[in-house]
């Protein structure tokens, strides 16, 4: 390797493939949540009647839950493979792993608990109990998003320190 450019065999290596899937899973999990929170929900609130809005929202909650939870599982699997490539367990990695446990727990709570209750409560259309659940869903989603961003920042520390990711 010279001048930061990677040669062809390195570009086709298992290590880069695993890293690519790992980064893609972050993009999918985080991007989906952010799009739903900051783009879709405000537009639904302003453009649709309550009945139609609830219909769309409950479908979004279910579909997004599947996408986010599967992405997190892929993240963990590829993350563990990355640990083998890094070849060491540092204090930074331990902090990251603790945050990963919290994020997965919160994501399960968000979609399998609050999301499921939103699905139940909205089965007959708008109901008074729905607003606090939607608000909690949003808050937990924002917390998960913030923690994922923190994990991404810690990951930069893991992979960008000299010698941590010496490809080529």
């Amino acid at each position, binding site marked *: 390797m010279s001048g930061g450019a990677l040669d062809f065999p390195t570009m086709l290596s298992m290590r880069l493939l695993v890293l690519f899937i790992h980064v893609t899973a972050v993009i999918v999990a985080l991007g989906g949540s952010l799009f739903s929170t900051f783009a879709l929900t405000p537009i639904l609130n302003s453009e649709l009647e309550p009945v139609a809005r609830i219909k769309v929202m409950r479908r979004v909650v279910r579909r997004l839950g599947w996408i986010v939870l599967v992405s997190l*599982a892929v993240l963990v699997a590829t993350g*563990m493979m990355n640990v083998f490539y890094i070849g060491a367990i*540092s204090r930074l990695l331990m902090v990251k792993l603790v945050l990963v446990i919290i994020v997965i727990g919160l994501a*399960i709570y968000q979609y399998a608990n609050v999301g499921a209750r939103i*699905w139940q409560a909205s089965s007959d259309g708008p109901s008074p109990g729905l607003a606090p659940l939607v608000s909690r869903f949003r808050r937990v989603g924002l917390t998960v998003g913030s923690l994922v961003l923190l994990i991404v920042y810690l990951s930069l520390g893991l992979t960008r320190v000299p010698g941590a990711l010496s490809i080529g």
Partner: protein
Amino acid sequence: MQRRKRGRQLYHRIVRWLSVAALLVAIISTASYGSGAHTAVRYLDPPMGAWWNASEFAFMTVSAAALGILVAIGAGLKLVAEEAVRRRVAIASIIVGAIIVAPLASGMAAMARLGWMAEGGLAPYAETSIVDKLLIAGVYSLKIAGFSLIAGLAMVAMVAAVIVPLTRVVPSREALK
């Protein structure tokens, strides 16, 4: 109502019993591996001692991995809302966990051998005292259980992602009119 309560207690009990069993096996096999207790078994029953000597490491890694997965299942279930969904997630997680525990134990055992800050590892293990060996084996088991806990939570998330959308909502009377 009574049957539903029994069903609810059953999967909770299964997870708890399996967790206790995994913990006991992990403690016994780790203590045996660390202290070289297979020699005592060899003294009483040589073929049994030889088998235990060959198997205790596998018992230690698989039980530690199983413990991590079971703790993850127990914690994950507390985060799921509906009883019907929780029961399905519990059953599916136990089945998937039983399938993946052996390969996961192998992978996590390799991962647990990675040293802190790329230092050390288990290389000088044979030369250390029995107390150090017990400590090293204990930390090794804890690392396997910890890594398996994360993998187990990811597995529960995956199972919930599949099970939750499949759960049907019973429509109310108003919706049926």
